[in-house]
C-alpha cells in the first residue's frame, strides 16, 4: 500500500512495529502493528509425539489518521476508506492470503474499534486473528 495510490486510494505513509518505548511519532495515514493475546485452539490441536498445538494469535493493526484541521473531508469517510484499503491489501491474493505463505491454517478479522481524538488522533484498531499449528515442544516447527 505504501506508495501505491493507484490500487489503494489511501496513500499510506509508513508501517511501524514499535520498540519497547514507542519509537515513532504519529503521522497521518500511518499503520502501527502490535501483537495481542494468543489463545490455544483445542479442537485443532492433535495428539502425537510430540503433540501438535493450534494457536490463535491476535494482531492489532492500528490505522492512524491526522488530516489537516482545515480539511473538509469527513473523518469517518477517510477512516472507512483506510480500513477498506488495508483489508483489501491483506486479503491479496484472495485464494491464499489466509495461509500467509502456507504458515497458517486460516486467518479471520476480528472487531474493528475506532479510537477518537483524545490525543488529537483519529483512527481504528483492526484485529486480525491468525490460527496456526506447531509442535507443542517447539513453536518454530510447523505442523
Amino acid at each position, binding site marked *: 500500500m505504501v506508495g501505491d495510490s493507484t490500487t489503494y486510494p489511501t496513500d499510506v505513509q509508513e508501517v511501524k512495529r*514499535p520498540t519497547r*518505548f*514507542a519509537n*515513532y*511519532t*504519529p*503521522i*497521518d495515514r500511518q499503520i*502501527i502493528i*502490535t501483537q*495481542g493475546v494468543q489463545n490455544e485452539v483445542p479442537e485443532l490441536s492433535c495428539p502425537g509425539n510430540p503433540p501438535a498445538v493450534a494457536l490463535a494469535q491476535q494482531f*492489532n493493526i*492500528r490505522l*492512524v489518521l*491526522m*488530516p*489537516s*484541521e*482545515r*480539511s473538509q473531508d469527513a473523518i469517518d469517510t477517510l477512516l472507512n476508506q483506510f480500513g477498506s484499503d488495508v483489508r483489501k491489501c491483506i486479503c491479496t491474493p484472495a485464494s491464499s492470503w489466509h495461509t500467509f505463505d502456507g504458515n497458517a491454517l486460516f486467518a479471520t478479522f476480528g472487531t474493528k474499534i475506532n*479510537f477518537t481524538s*483524545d*490525543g*488529537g*488522533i483519529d*483512527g481504528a*484498531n483492526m484485529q486480525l486473528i491468525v490460527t496456526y499449528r506447531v509442535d507443542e515442544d517447539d513453536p518454530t516447527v510447523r505442523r
Partner: protein
Amino acid sequence: MTLHDTIIEDAKKVFANPQDFAEPIVYYKRNGRSRKINAVVEREDSLQLPEASDLVTPLFRVRAPNDEAEGIASDELDLGGDQIGLSPRVGEPAERRSIVRLVEHDEGMLVLECR
C-alpha cells in the same frame, strides 16, 4: 505599557530566552516550511497511549510564544501535520515529533503536546 502588554512581552523575552528557560527547537509546518524558534520543553516519559493501552511513548509539552515570528501563532497552527524538532532527551540529536494537542493558549503563550 499595560500589564497585558508586559505579560505578552515577557513570554518572548523571558520564557523564550535560551539564557533563561528556553531552548532552540524547530517548528515544521504541514506545508513543508519550517523556522527555528526558542521554547520551553518539558519532557515526560511513558505516556500510555489513549488509543493503544499496550503502547507507551515519551510525551513532550512545548511552551512557545504565541507569535508568528518568534514562536508559533495560534491561528497558523495545524494539529493535522505540524511537528516540532526537539531532542527527546537532553543532549540527544533532535527528532521530529508531531503536535497532537493544543493544551492551552492565550495571547502570550501556547502549550502544545507532542508525541
